[in-house]
């Protein structure tokens, strides 16, 4: 069990997703069952008319007008989404500019697409077809984090993680560990990804995109919807809260590798079970105390059946669960952060958000996600994230 000085609280958060450009808007969409999956308006790709996506409704110009990034050149959509969520997070936690740039404040971000959202510009730059491009420092997975570090003068530990679709769940875990190790007193953690031709063509080549709205945990599911967004949370050590109201406590995490296949999970759910088990044991829980699971639930054939199998093996009975990717799509490197925020909102408000588009359970597990919004007394919730190359992470939050 955790000692008091090791307690890590969430003192604020911010996000931008296909169902809202801040946390409050996202909450209201979740409560009213309003999905953000649709034909994209802004995203340019041959596949834009073939598949459905979770697109953030604000254009780059609209995002820019809401941000204080004057003078910064070469900003990509990934950077803009990250800035938007970061700003909301530090404001909601009431961090002063001095606190943000204190050597005691860590920043741990995550991204898988980075600036590759500018696929055509990147093609030109990397094939030497341009001169004086403003985007030469914009493409890396870490580019957005460098921008934020520069703009907010972050002097503490900085890290960027890429474990594919579990990236920002690992960013939360890493931030909490930096605090517990004494390397930081607070950490701003999360991740970002934007829609890109790169990922759309990649997932298309793997044949796991759905032309319909994704149906997580449904026996007729036929793939995922790619989404975009950003989410950041502020983690603070108990004694740094100084009277601030925290929304939850991060009490458990587990990281594991399924060690089975590059782009699919093992039938025995080795990695998923180990991540869930380690998170539960760290939090001192057996599984019965978990009141809700925000599942990874991408809507692909492989993920949902393996995740359901892991639930059946670990939990007795299986707690209420849902995949909120049915609202947002799969936001890759941002998913863990966005879903952590949704888990914390569920805890804080004592409510469960339904899994949309579900009708029939996957067999033989026969597990039914929650399909209607409802109130619930919650003490602990779990959030799961899994990525290509076998990366599995589970987080457990406790009501503050």
């Amino acid at each position: 069990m955790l000692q008091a000085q090791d307690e890590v609280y969430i003192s604020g958060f911010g996000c931008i997703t296909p169902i809202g450009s801040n946390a409050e808007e996202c909450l209201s969409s979740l409560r009213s069952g309003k999905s953000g999956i649709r034909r994209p308006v802004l995203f340019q790709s041959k596949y834009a008319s073939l598949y459905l996506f979770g697109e953030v409704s604000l254009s780059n110009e609209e995002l820019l007008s809401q941000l204080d990034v004057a003078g910064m050149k070469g900003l990509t959509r990934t950077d803009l989404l990250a800035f938007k969520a970061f700003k909301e997070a530090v404001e909601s936690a009431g961090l002063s500019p001095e606190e943000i740039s204190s050597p005691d404040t860590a920043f741990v971000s995550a991204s898988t697409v980075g600036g590759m959202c500018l696929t055509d510009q990147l093609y030109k730059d990397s094939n030497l077809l341009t001169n004086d491009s403003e985007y030469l420092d914009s493409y890396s997975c870490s580019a957005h984090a460098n921008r934020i570090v520069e703009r907010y003068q972050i002097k503490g530990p900085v890290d960027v993680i890429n474990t594919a679709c579990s990236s920002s769940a690992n960013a939360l875990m890493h931030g909490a560990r930096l605090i517990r190790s004494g390397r930081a007193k607070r950490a701003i953690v999360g991740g970002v990804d934007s829609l890109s031709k790169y990922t759309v063509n990649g997932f298309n080549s793997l044949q796991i995109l759905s032309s319909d709205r994704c149906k997580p945990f449904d026996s007729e599911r036929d793939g995922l919807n790619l989404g975009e967004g950003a989410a950041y949370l502020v983690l603070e050590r108990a004694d740094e809260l100084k009277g601030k109201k925290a929304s939850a406590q991060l009490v458990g995490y587990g990281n594991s590798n399924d060690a089975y296949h590059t782009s699919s999970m093992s039938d025995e759910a080795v990695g998923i079970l180990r991540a869930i088990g380690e998170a539960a044991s760290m939090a001192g829980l057996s599984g019965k105390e978990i009141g809700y699971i925000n599942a990874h639930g991408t809507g692909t054939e492989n993920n949902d059946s393996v995740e359901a199998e892991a639930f059946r093996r670990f939990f007795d009975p299986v707690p209420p669960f849902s995949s909120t990717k049915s609202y947002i799509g799969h936001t890759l490197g941002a998913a863990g952060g966005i879903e952590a925020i949704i888990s914390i909102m569920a805890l804080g408000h004592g409510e469960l958000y339904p899994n949309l588009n579900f009708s029939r359970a996957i067999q033989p597990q026969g597990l039914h996600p929650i399909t209607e919004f409802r109130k619930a007394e919650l003490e602990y919730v779990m959030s799961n994230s899994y990525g290509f190359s076998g990366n599995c992470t589970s987080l457990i939050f406790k009501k503050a």
Partner: protein
Amino acid sequence: MYLIDMLAISPQESWNGKAYLNNIRIVSGNKLMAIEPDYGDIIKPSQLRRMGKALRMGIGCGAELMKRNEELDGIIIGTSEGGLEGCISFLNQIVDYDEGTLTPTNFIQGTPNLVAGHLALISGNSGYNITHVNGGLSFENALTDALMLFAEGKAERLLVGNVEEISDYNFNIGYLAGLYKGEDSLSSGLIGSATPGTLAGEGSAMFVFGRSKQPDSLRLVDVACISYPTKEELSKLICRTLEGKGVSSSDIDAVIAGYSGDSRSDFWYDDITNELFPGASVYTYKNLVGEYPSSSAFALKLGFDLLRGDSVPAEIVKKETGRPLRNVLIYNHYRAKQHSLILISGDFSPEKDSSP
């Protein structure tokens, strides 16, 4: 944490132990390409054919170390870019074929976490697995992660390493951004060069670290990083980091500094070594392997080799004081934006600080 084993693939003949120190290769042009070993015993030919260079180097080092060191509790990789050759192939196909039907191999190979994931896969290791991609601090972030895991008591032995490759993708973009020298260069003349830009490099260095003391007592003491610092802020960080480990700046016998031959940013190394470590020897390493975001992994391999008592090759000496080596500080920056310190020691005396 303590060194158990290490391996490096680099532009030097570093695969077989320390022999490279007696036979430094000199390269002309602005790319220092890594010399790859025969992977025959390490990677199955059917897999090898489909791997890009980053993957081959990372899996080559990692898989060989995992063969020699069983029972590892996790795999931690630092790489700024991962397998770029696969990434740009896929990118070019998207544009050249106007988003036609593509095969997933290059897409999968372009994901930076593939090295850590593939190492887990081939060894059946379901333990802790992560990839840090924070540009010039990626490898330092991986080391910090390992230090924390040991301190948490969650691991006894870990594989930690880096990988970076020169591809058309990053070389061209870096070239346009002014990172590399435009004129013909020899790697032997890199240090002290009066022109802007550096030489591109690549490689993989991997380490098995243990939580408890090993027979030869080579220890990685601590790691610290800072982004966009002033010189004052950097000096403060160096002093705080050393103090935290009970080491004074005069205890540092040598600094391995990341001199890259870039006339715009090498002054950082001059300033720090002259002002904070006037009594220490100063060694360089980028004239051996070139510049790349996780190059400090090679510096660490070099540092451990020197601590083991090998003679210091003249090619890497910027300043020699003749002091025997016990405490070595690696100071590197990437494009003067991300600065890092790695403190290592071959401390044979009783532990001052017994934390891992």
